């Protein structure tokens, strides 16, 4: 009996000797510039919108735990934009004093990309639009000095924030027009309900210096233009419901609307663009659109089963990528070996080689519920 006891004690101490206590309390930081294949998934928490998240993932990683880099909170369908010249992410958010009710406060939160922690905020007029997230609710202009936030009460306006001085500057009315498309210098355009573009040029105080309006150029009834443009080289390529593209040059302070061209050509099957974030571009100028067949009145938000890739300058199709599962949103990384990332209908992220169209992996199980919008990190 004594002998047995001794054996047990020896065994126990051997087990303890094998346990190396894990170091705790270690807080890691991320690099200032993120690798080209890192992505940000905006999980807008569609079914409980007060606590959305921006989740940072490595789309190259097959390691389920290693691909998760961290996350930032994004309250009440936050809208975000990444700076290129500073390691900062700007996020327009809404808070209520009692969580789901009470006094409303809107802020532009400034996140540090290295810590994913908030490092500042600017209080906004409590008017920002909490529509389904788009790329054009929040944009930077004037060499990333000014942030523009789209408001909807439903009177429409744009809040101007100096993100360097971190102060609110002005509210610009954009009656009858929506969203904010960045232009050259200190200017932006908005898409108007009559098929025109409104352009506002700002002074260095952020106030409106001048404004202009194009002639209506698209037909809001017969072939409406979508607000979801693929941007390359300062040109916004806007698709229409029926698959035409309006190229609009936003490099100056007056938009130049080009001749529309067809994505569909003589392709049969009733193909049309559709989805939530249905347009993307890569650094070579290729444009990507989510497409579905048998398009009809009301199918403009249907998931896409293919991604069609176009050369925007040549106005011709480069390739068709068949998706492994239909998708609602896409984005493309900005490097020489771009990845196409797509939120599929199971609310996972499919990763494709954007050049070959090969499906590489599916990112799931990262705590996501509704990753509605994807962005390539930089």
């Amino acid at each position: 009996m004594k002998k047995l006891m001794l054996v047990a004690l020896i065994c126990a101490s051997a087990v303890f000797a094998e346990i190396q206590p894990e170091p705790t309390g270690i807080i890691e930081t991320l690099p200032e510039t993120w690798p080209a294949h890192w992505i940000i998934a905006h999980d807008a928490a569609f079914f409980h919108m007060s606590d959305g998240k921006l989740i940072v993932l490595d789309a190259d990683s097959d390691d389920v735990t290693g691909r998760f880099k961290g996350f930032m909170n994004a309250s009440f369908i936050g809208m975000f934009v990444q700076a290129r010249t500073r390691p900062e992410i700007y996020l327009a958010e809404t808070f209520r004093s009692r969580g789901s009710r009470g006094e409303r406060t809107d802020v532009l939160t400034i996140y540090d990309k290295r810590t994913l922690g908030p490092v500042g905020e600017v209080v906004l007029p409590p008017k920002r639009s909490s529509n389904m997230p788009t790329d054009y609710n929040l944009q930077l202009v004037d060499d990333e000095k000014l942030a523009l936030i789209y408001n909807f009460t439903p009177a429409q306006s744009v809040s101007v924030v100096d993100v360097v001085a971190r102060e609110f500057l002005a509210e610009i009315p954009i009656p009858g027009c929506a969203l904010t498309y960045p232009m050259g210098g200190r200017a932006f355009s908005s898409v108007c309900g009559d098929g025109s573009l409104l352009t506002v040029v700002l002074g260095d105080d952020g106030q409106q210096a001048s404004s202009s309006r194009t002639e209506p150029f698209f037909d809001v009834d017969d072939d409406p233009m979508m607000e979801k443009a693929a941007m390359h080289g300062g040109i916004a390529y806007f698709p229409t419901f029926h698959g035409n593209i309006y190229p609009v040059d936003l490099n100056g302070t007056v938009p130049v609307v080009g001749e529309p061209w067809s994505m569909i050509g003589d392709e049969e099957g009733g193909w049309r663009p559709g989805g939530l974030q249905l347009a993307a571009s890569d650094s070579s100028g290729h444009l990507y659109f989510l497409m579905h067949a048998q398009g009809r009145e009301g199918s403009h938000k249907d998931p896409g089963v293919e991604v069609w890739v176009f050369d925007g300058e040549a106005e011709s199709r480069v390739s068709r990528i068949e998706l492994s599962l239909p998708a609602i949103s896409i984005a493309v990384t900005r490097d020489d070996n771009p990845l196409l990332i797509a939120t599929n209908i199971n609310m996972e992220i499919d990763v494709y080689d954007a050049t070959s169209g090969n499906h590489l992996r599916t990112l799931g199980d990262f705590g996501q519920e509704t990753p509605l919008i994807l962005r390539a990190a930089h």
Partner: protein
Amino acid sequence: MALAMGLVPVAGADDHRARINYMIHCQGCHLPEAVGFAGKVPRMNGFAGYFLHSQEGREFLIRVPGVATSSLPDDQLTELMNWLLLTYSAEQLPEPFVPFSVAEVAALRPDLEADPEKTRMRILRQIARGLPSLAVELELISGG
């Protein structure tokens, strides 16, 4: 009701079409019965007719972006505006009520109002100087 108020319906107008157009083009923000949303969306019910007490106010109703840039053709927009005034704000209309004509609406629409919130209040204050009932309304609005 318009007849009971001693107002003449507009010749050739289709009230049913006007009502459907209101539901499709206006009601999303201005809500059923044009009651608006305090502090955000102007109430037109029991109010819109005040604007016709000045020429500038009359023009504002067509030049305001929600009206001017609507996708309705001029004739249906004219029909809708006349219907809306008679249906929801007959008591506030001046005597006699001169309905909008298609030519008038067509001429005003392109001249879009650039700063509707400010212009609206300026016009209303001006009208209120000669119209005690509106002055009372405006105090109620600013108080609430």
